[in-house]
């Protein structure tokens, strides 16, 4: 399990462009807000709180192809599955690395962005907590969608259609500051479902 | 008759929704029926070839 985390981190370090692109994508979506809605500061603050969730959802959607697909197509997934007989451990380590590589950078950059949009400290902390909890749930969902759609090639749109309905509850509760306990519950529920479904999908495609 | 067509001023809503509804159902039915015919034809051909 630790081996796999180390390996995935090293791999993302070797092809660091991917992770850089995701951060840029996230930032650019948020930068579009003032262009689309004008520069009134109180309006910007409100919009930011919602659009940051859309940006997070989209950033996770564009990374969903990288979780299992590359390893599946070149055959590394076979070796990894052979070495990790309990596939649930493999799945958990993928959660960790996927969150670490693609969500943590977004959370790190979030405070800077929130100051650009005139949020005060308290609001920044609230949004940070919500995004922190919600991003885990979204990563769980992205993982099982990735595992289920391994055999469907080049179908990022299909994956988006599957994932966005599942993201809806996160976006609803995420944009409300006080509802982090519900987000936590949703994340835990999606963890329980995701770990079974992901392992199921990987076993099926391993056959 | 005019009264019926007018639907108490809601003619466009009522008739358009009924129109869309039945049009779609019929089209959907026909698509599946024709598909079934096509598949049955292809299937019978391949079966004859095997026999």
């Amino acid at each position, binding site marked *: 399990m630790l081996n796999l985390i180390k390996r995935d981190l090293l791999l993302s370090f070797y092809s660091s462009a991917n992770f850089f692109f995701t951060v840029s994508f996230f930032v650019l979506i948020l930068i579009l807000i003032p262009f689309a809605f004008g520069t009134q500061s109180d309006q910007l603050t409100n919009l930011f709180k919602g659009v940051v969730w859309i940006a997070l959802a989209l950033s996770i959607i564009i990374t969903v192809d990288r979780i299992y697909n590359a390893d599946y197509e070149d055959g590394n997934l076979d070796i990894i599955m052979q070495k990790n007989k309990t596939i649930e451990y493999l799945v958990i380590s993928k959660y960790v690395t996927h969150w670490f590589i693609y969500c943590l950078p977004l959370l790190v950059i979030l405070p800077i962005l929130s100051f650009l949009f005139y949020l005060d400290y308290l609001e920044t902390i609230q949004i940070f907590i919500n995004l922190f909890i919600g991003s885990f749930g979204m990563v769980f969902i992205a993982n*099982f969608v990735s595992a*289920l*759609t391994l*055999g*469907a090639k080049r*179908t990022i749109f*299909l994956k988006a*259609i*599957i994932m*966005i*309905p*599942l993201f*809806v*509850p996160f976006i*609803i*509760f995420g944009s*409300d500051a006080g509802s982090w306990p519900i987000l936590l519950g*949703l994340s835990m529920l999606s963890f329980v*479902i995701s770990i079974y*479904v992901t392992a*199921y*999908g990987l076993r*099926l*495609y391993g056959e | 008759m005019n009264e*019926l067509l007018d*639907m*108490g*001023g*809601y003619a466009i*809503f*009522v008739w*358009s*929704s*009924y129109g*869309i*509804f*039945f049009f*779609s*159902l019929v089209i*959907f*039915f026909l698509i*599946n*029926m024709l*598909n*079934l015919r096509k*598949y*049955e034809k*292809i*299937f019978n051909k*391949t079966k004859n070839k*095997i026999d």
Partner: protein
Amino acid sequence: MYIKINNNHIELIKSANPYLIFATIFVFIIGLYYSLFQSPPDYIQGDSMRIMYIHVPSAWFALMTYSILAGSCVLWFITRNPLFNVVARSIAQVGMVFTLMSLITGSIWGKPTWGVWWVWDARLTSMLILFFLYIAYIFLWQAISNKELASKISAALAIIGFINIPIIKFSVDWWNTLHQPASISKLSAPSIDESMLIPLFIMTIACFLFLVTVSLIRFRLVLIENKMLRTSN
């Protein structure tokens, strides 16, 4: 309880087909007569109320079809009887059409009633999401080239979607109480007059007959598809 489909069953379905088509058309005509001519206009909504007779049955069957879909997927995983997979696949597209119809007729009905085409109410939103779940189920099956695998994968997705729908409904309700305290969209459900129940009832039966007819046609279609996949291997 292992039911295996054999040629006799298919012949039976085949011979029932024309009667079913006839019955569907017949009941639809009666239903149309009752809903457009016989029933009185509503006190408040006037004649726009007549859209209800097609909107409500399609919404019911949209939900019912998805329940059957998810239920047969669960049963398929439990019993491993391929019949349930065939049922799920033959019923899915009919459900999608009913969902789309209930969305379209609902929004045409909404315009004269609420003054807007669409309201972000829990019921409507979850219906919209349901539509995308149907799309995801159908197209995921088509996108995976190994069809045996595709059935298992899309069945898993259908079950997850079934869990998702109540969550969405709950969260949109919650969100509405947070963001828009005045909910304008509660349909006037209380005390439907008996004269309105009759056309509604007939239209429901007609929609059910349509569902059965097309599902059985698709049932045969899916069976032939499966056979063709088998012989091509």
